[in-house]
């Protein structure tokens, strides 16, 4: 991945160095009054153009992405309340506390539950729905829309809605009572044994549409001829899906799983909206990021919170790199143009 990127950028630079007669040639052909030699390659005007066009994006990227990451790493070494400059250097103390804190371990555990459960619940359901919606049938487009709508709704709206419906005196319990299923009413959000499953239900409802869309797009790319050939050879519907659709859908599934894993590790908004600032840990649905906000920002421990951010960053990085190395490798191999390795 990184290899090919460097090579790409090298290739770009070399093309800048030798502008093609059709493109840059026209510009170089009229040198400024100063009489710069023609061989200087990139003209001032071109440099200016590149700087002006890329400058703002680079400044924003450095200012709002790179700089905060570096600052978080820096603040993570201090005991700092956010007032005045950080002065109380504590070395790795914050990291030691984080890794020993049972609350953080619980949060990490919840993240891992959510990660695994998302994959094993959403994956199969999404594949079945995509298969279903790929067939020609009545009302197909309306079902597609209905499945996709939750993904479009903002997390805040979905979260507020579910927290109202699932609360102890909420609509779901009322409904259950009124249809004679009063036995099944529960403290959906407050009972630590149920809350995580309620969250999984909401997450599935919210994000399944995205998986379905991805899988359907993947299925469109599978040539019709393959299933036709299989059908002629006597394969049944399920056999075709099992032997042809699924293996060819592999790259799409792996990319979806990657996005889902990253989403699970960084889950914050839904939990924060539904359970608020404090009780996520009590209800057993806290995540690493809600932990960071609760014990960092809300507790006024900006140094400690920054250290948590760094830990979350590294955990996500390790998982992402590991996944790329061991799972995504086979999809990217050969798919990327790399001129050098032939």
């Amino acid at each position, binding site marked *: 991945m990184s290899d090919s990127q460097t090579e790409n950028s090298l290739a770009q*630079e*070399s093309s*800048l*160095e030798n502008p093609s007669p059709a493109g840059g040639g026209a510009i170089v052909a009229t040198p400024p009054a100063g009489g710069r030699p023609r061989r*200087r*390659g*990139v003209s001032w005007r071109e*440099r*200016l153009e*590149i*700087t002006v066009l890329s*400058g*703002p994006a*680079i*400044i924003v990227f*450095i200012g709002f992405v790179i700089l905060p990451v570096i600052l978080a790493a820096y603040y993570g070494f201090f*005991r*700092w*309340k*956010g*007032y*005045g400059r950080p002065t109380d250097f504590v070395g790795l*103390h*914050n990291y030691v*506390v984080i890794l020993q*804190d049972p609350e953080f371990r619980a949060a990490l555990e919840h993240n891992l539950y959510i990660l695994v459960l998302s994959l094993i619940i959403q994956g199969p359901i999404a594949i079945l729905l995509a298969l279903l919606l790929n067939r020609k049938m009545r009302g197909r487009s309306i079902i597609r829309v209905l499945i996709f709508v939750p993904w479009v709704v903002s997390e805040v709206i979905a979260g507020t809605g579910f*927290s*109202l419906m699932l*609360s*102890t*005196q909420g609509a779901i319990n009322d409904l259950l009572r009124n249809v004679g299923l009063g036995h099944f009413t529960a*403290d959906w*959000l*407050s009972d*630590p044994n149920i809350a995580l499953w309620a969250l999984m239900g909401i997450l599935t409802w919210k994000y399944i549409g995205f998986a379905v869309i991805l899988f359907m797009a993947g299925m469109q790319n599978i040539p019709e001829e393959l299933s036709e050939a299989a059908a002629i050879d006597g394969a049944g519907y399920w056999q075709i899906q099992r032997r042809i659709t699924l293996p060819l859908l592999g790259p799409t599934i792996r990319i979806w799983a990657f996005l889902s894993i990253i989403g699970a590790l960084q889950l914050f908004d839904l939990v924060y909206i539904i*359970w*608020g*600032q*404090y*009780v996520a*840990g*009590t*209800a057993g649905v806290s995540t690493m990021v809600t932990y960071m906000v*609760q*014990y960092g*920002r*809300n*507790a*006024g*421990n900006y*140094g*400690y919170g920054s250290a948590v951010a760094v830990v979350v960053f590294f955990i996500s990085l390790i998982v992402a790199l590991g996944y790329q190395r061991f799972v995504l490798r086979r999809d990217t191999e050969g798919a990327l143009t790399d001129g050098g390795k032939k």
Partner: protein
Amino acid sequence: MTRKFRAAALVALGASAALAMTACSGGSDNGGNGGSTNDTTKPVTMTLWTNATTGPGAKFFEDTAAAFTQAHPNVTIKIQTVQNEDLDGKLQTALQAGQGTAPDIFLQRGGGKMAAMVDAGQLMDISDSVSADTKASVGAGAFAAEQVEGKTYAMPVDVLPGGFWYSDTLFKKAGITTPPTTIDELNQAVTKLKAANITPIALGAKDAWPAAHWYYWFALRECSQDTLNSTAKTLKFDDECWTKAGNDLKTFADTKPFNNGFLNTSAQQGAGSSAGQVANHKAATELMGAWDPGQIAALTPDQKPLPDLKFTPFIQVPGGKGDPKAIMGGVDGYSCSAWAPKPACTDFLNYLTTKDVQVAYYKAFQAPPVNKDAQAAVTDPIIKATIDAFNQAPYVSQWLDTLYGQNVGNALNTAVVNLLAGKGSVDDIVKSVNNAADKG
């Protein structure tokens, strides 16, 4: 060639970055006049940050600022309202930026946050600027809340003591003639209310602090005043009274006095919140600060004050080391930033505590004013009751999460919620408070 191109791009990038930065720092030269000047004719402009964004509260500050300018023609005060939940974060950033960006006058919540501002040199020491009139009309108890190591850093404007806010109608319906004053009476009241099919106590545990208030109050009764204050320095719950307070709460919570699903009930948002349940006669009472009548009034069906709402102080706990009449509450104050123009800013703070302004404050915010003469002008019976409880108390403690700072407060609040949810033990409260010190 490539290298040169890169160098040129870098220089250009650096130049535009520098440009962008100077653009950011320019244009913020108004505001504070750089510390003290005794010239009373030189024009002075001050900014004031408050959380009163709408209604009579916002109007109060506009009127007060205008009246002050009339008396001091050289002083202009710009009011900036900031949504309550955003105020602390914005304030922190602005104070961090210092002169020019920091507001000159702002709402001060006191406690650990104020101590942190003092440590960072962001607040003006106003001890010597408090006028004799102010000292005479405002009690020492209110000032104590605004002091760090004997120096005053904010001017108190109101006191918000806590206690039970209950519906008289529901109490009568359940056969409770006098509000409970002891733990036994409280237990009996809960039993009677349950028998009458009324939710005894609403609790907004989703916000954590309303649940934690129950623990604070038991601690106020179990712990001596000295223990409460010395803990503010050590931030360790070593004294056994902290465990006793936890046991009191555990025993009481085991009688299941709170509304169902209290863990997911918020304090003030909507009819399902704890204030909303009291407002709609779904629950008989809640333990809350003196802002509660206002919150409840906003959540009644007709958005008018609840006619049968009454106040009674927290119960007494036998055998505790705390005074049975001691009270807990918040004190709202206003601070001058370290960069504010000195006589103008402190003059305004003194002006805020004068009788007429305080009466206007009470009318705008429906909160007990801090000026004793203005307190005499209070006609509302429940606010009068809170003022009486406040004035009869031998000492007043701040809310413990304010007193012990954000970090310990946060851990304490969470631990109490865990206890009520059956997830943690009494020892866990003590443990998590002691552990919180590791985090900040």
